[in-house]
């Protein structure tokens, strides 16, 4: 497929602009980069989950072959980083808080020498009681994991105390009084497990320091600006001393949003006086980065006999792990989503986030939404079942529509949820009967997710020959944002995609972009791109007006990079306009535009809010997910036979890339629902390898996976677009659980739905 030569590129499934590099093996990722005089770094992890560091002896390691420098907590100063609570240093200082936490790092001539030297470092620990669950950590006599918690900088009212990292409570209506109006009330406890991101590319970084002390830092990341902020905070360096860059990134899903090894790489490079590269092993990537929070959810939902939902209460206890990272945001966001896309007048959502001696949990596709949706959508299903309403009907009677408020919020601007639901119902043929020895069921779940959040900018520059360079600072982690943003730019300037090149994110030269997270790049950065391109259009018309001796208002852009007088064939190529700007008058054509998402997400008059981590969240995308499962009666194994996802994406800038987001989210959700689980043996992660932690292979997923794009334009979205990065995963565990219930008559309240768990349920139902 080739790009049309006359603009009109929005809505076209163009191949991603970097794909030729990727299919030829030439694309460069962090592990492929090298620098002159570069050293290799390795990490020494703590063997204990909770211990004081009494002393560290590095002399023997320093004398080992190839070793150039070693850092420990003494080398990094008192700075602390964290997006919500600044509780984490670059490397352990004074104590360790999870097993595997780096206590020292070695830079040597080779990776093998660096790893060998780590084993020569002697650390004297004083063990402290391990707190491996929120219950253990909240016990009255539990020692504090962070003794200095009260002194940490916090960016919101977190309520931190003891081992309570944060708490949030949001309420609308009067839940306590509303239960009396309900004919049916369900109350259940649900649990969800830790899920590893498993981006196929492990985390890594290269840091280089020049003679003036300026740092250049390449890394696998989802935001060069978060890398810059984190390293700046924990190493107490001015942000301007850090230049952060990105090569191609081999997947993210949240794991590369906040810091991983970047601070240690920088500290090592500063001490060694030479560039240092650290690439994590797969085991380290499991053990010391971050993962999806285990949630314990108490969900209570009440309805009238006719199916009208009246009240919901959701109480979450989330395992934070050893450091706050994005966790306060995850907890708060999950509570804002726990009502689901339903009109329920009385809702109370509250939660606690508890420090434990496990690796930090953090951002992961869905940001807490899959967990609460697993609970909430099973309740909706069960209410329907008990009231004799089919899964579509119970949802249709209660779901939100455009113009209605979100929980605590302002009005939802665009909502294609009804069409999503109609579409999956229409497209799915009747479920065929199960063969002997199997049982089958169909399950439905619906969901909403935001796109929005925080600041972003774009710079569009026209070069002397009229070609365009777009610079947004948004890291493309493979999902295709470079292509989508270039399509938005090309559309606005009516040029072919080939005329727009995308600059790689660089904190020196790119405008701020909070990050590739929160399903936000297409929606927020796309808006900034249109703003910047419109400014370029204004300057083009000003220049052309001077040449053609007419008013700018009398000019329009023509396909292919030309500007002309309306109603006339008098026109100029962009090259003529840009040449004048560069060499004669006006100056180079540069358009820039910045914004911060400031939609009225919350209306303080609607309810009460305690511990709100972000003031404005975003606009809403919607999805309906329908799945058919088959359960093997002998093994309990659940197989997804076929699935239908219909998603209201506002406008698909590149439909094929949107479909892949939905497919990829579905399959990651399938793994979460059926078998993915990080398992701890005491303090030690028992399955930190791809042999022991299974992710879906091509044999585990339905190839009959159908994606339908519903386009209900968002009024202020770029060409109507909304985000799709996360929503594809959110409804999957609930839909699969509902399908398993339909097959077996048993309600599953704990994830994952392993064969063992399902077989137990089968055997129980037969006795």
């Amino acid at each position, binding site marked *: 497929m080739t790009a049309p030569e006359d603009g009109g590129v929005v809505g076209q499934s163009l*191949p991603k602009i970097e794909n030729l590099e*990727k299919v030829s093996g030439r694309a460069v990722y962090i592990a*492929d980069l090298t620098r002159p005089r570069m050293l290799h770094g390795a990490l020494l992890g703590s063997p204990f989950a909770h211990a004081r560091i009494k002393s560290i002896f590095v002399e023997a390691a320093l004398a080992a072959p190839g070793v150039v420098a070693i850092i420990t907590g003494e080398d990094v100063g008192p700075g602390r980083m964290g997006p919500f609570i600044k509780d984490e240093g670059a490397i352990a200082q004074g104590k360790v808080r999870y097993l595997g936490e780096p206590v020292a790092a070695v830079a040597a001539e080779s990776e093998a020498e660096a790893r*060998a030297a780590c084993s020569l470092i002697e650390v004297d620990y004083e063990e402290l009681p391990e707190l491996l669950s929120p219950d253990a950590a909240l016990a009255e006599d539990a020692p504090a994991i962070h003794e200095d918690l009260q002194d940490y900088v916090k960016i919101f009212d977190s309520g931190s105390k003891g081992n309570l990292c944060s708490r949030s409570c949001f309420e609308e209506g009067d839940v306590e009084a509303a239960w009396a109006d309900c004919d049916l009330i369900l109350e259940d406890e649900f649990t969800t497990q830790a899920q590893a991101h498993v981006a196929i590319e492990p985390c890594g970084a290269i840091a280089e320091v020049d003679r003036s002390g300026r740092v250049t830092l390449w890394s696998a990341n989802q935001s060069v600006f978060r890398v810059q902020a984190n390293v700046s905070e924990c190493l107490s360096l001015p942000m301007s001393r850090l230049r952060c860059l990105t090569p191609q990134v081999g997947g993210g899903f949240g794991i590369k949003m906040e810091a991983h090894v970047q601070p240690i790489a920088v500290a090592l490079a500063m001490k060694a006086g030479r560039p240092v590269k650290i690439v994590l092993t797969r085991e380290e990537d499991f053990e010391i980065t971050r993962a999806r929070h285990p949630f314990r959810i108490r969900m209570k939902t009440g309805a009238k006999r006719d199916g009208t939902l009246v009240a919901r209460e959701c109480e979450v206890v989330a395992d934070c792990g050893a450091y706050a990272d994005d966790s306060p945001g995850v907890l708060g966001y999950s509570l804002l989503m726990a009502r689901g896309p339903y009109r329920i007048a009385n809702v109370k959502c509250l939660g606690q986030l508890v420090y434990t001696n496990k690796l930090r949990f953090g951002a992961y596709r869905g940001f807490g939404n899959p967990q609460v949706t697993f609970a909430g959508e099973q309740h909706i299903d069960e209410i329907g079942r008990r009231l004799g309403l089919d899964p579509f009907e119970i949802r249709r009677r209660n779901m939100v529509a455009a113009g209605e408020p979100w929980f605590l919020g302002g009005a939802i601007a665009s909502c294609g949820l009804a069409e999503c639901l109609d579409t999956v119902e229409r497209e799915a043929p009747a479920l065929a009967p199960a063969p002997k020895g199997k049982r089958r069921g169909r399950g439905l779940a619906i969901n909403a997710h935001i796109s929005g959040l925080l600041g972003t900018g774009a710079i569009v520059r026209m070069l002397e020959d009229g070609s365009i360079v777009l610079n947004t600072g948004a890291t493309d982690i493979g999902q295709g944002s470079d292509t989508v943003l270039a399509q938005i730019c090309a559309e606005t300037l009516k040029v072919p995609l080939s005329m727009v090149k995308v600059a790689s994110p660089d904190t020196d030269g790119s405008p701020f972009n909070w990050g590739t997270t929160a399903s936000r790049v297409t929606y927020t950065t796309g808006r900034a791109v249109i703003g910047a391109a419109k400014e370029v259009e204004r300057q083009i018309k000003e220049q052309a007006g001077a040449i053609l001796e007419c008013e700018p208002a009398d000019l329009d852009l023509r396909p292919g990079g030309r500007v002309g007088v309306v109603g006339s064939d008098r026109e100029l190529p962009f090259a003529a306009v840009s040449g004048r700007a560069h060499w004669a008058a006006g100056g180079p054509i540069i358009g820039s535009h910045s914004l911060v998402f400031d939609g009225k997400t919350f209306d303080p008059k609607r309810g009460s809010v305690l511990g709100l981590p972000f003031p404005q969240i975003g606009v809403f995308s919607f999805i309906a997910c329908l799945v058919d499962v088959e359960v093997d009666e002998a093994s309990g194994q659940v197989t997804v036979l076929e699935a239908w996802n219909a998603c209201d994406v506002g406008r698909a800038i590149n439909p094929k890339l949107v479909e*892949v987001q939905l497919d990829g989210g579905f399959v*990651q959700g399938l793994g979460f629902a059926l078998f993915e689980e990080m398992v701890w043996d005491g303090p030690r992660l028992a399955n930190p390898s*791809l042999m022991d932690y299974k992710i879906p292979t*091509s*044999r585990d997923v339905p190839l009959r996976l159908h994606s339908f794009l519903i386009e209900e334009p968002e009024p202020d979205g770029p060409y109507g677009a909304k985000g799709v990065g996360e929503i594809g995963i959110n409804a999957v565990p609930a839909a699969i659980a509902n399908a398993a219930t339909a097959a077996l008559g048993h309600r599953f309240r704990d994830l994952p739905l392993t064969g063992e768990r399902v077989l137990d349920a089968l055997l129980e139902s037969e006795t």
Partner: protein
Amino acid sequence: MSDPTAITLDLDGRQQTALAAPDATLLTLLREGLGNTGPKRGCNQGVCGACTVMIDGWPQRACLTLAAACADKPVQTLEGLSSDPVMVSLSKHFAEGGAVQCGFCSTGMLISARKLLDDEPNPSSDQVSAALSGNLCRCIGYRKIVEAVQAAAQELAS
């Protein structure tokens, strides 16, 4: 650690020599000794398939193969297959069919798909899915990869 010795490979149709330790894997030799960074280190345990290369006509894990054991066998990576008509078609359909996202698994995936089309020029979706089951992808959900392989097969047959 023993001293490195020179190992000469028949790599992508050329004799190429680099120093490697006796216990160095083919993946280490390719990436660090010869600057061929197409094969990726995703797990270094032979599970993810991102390091898959063709050894003696078979897709194999470069991370599980000793470099020294490859001295007398032809080794092929995407570098050497850039004008191979089957690989050209596969690459095109991967790139245009939505079968490439982060790209980290793509090189290994393409090598496995190339072998499948040698053995079965007109594979069913089930055959494609089976042939690629040793190559993990976390982005795409596999459907579009399977479709891309079948589209390449159709193009090559016509």
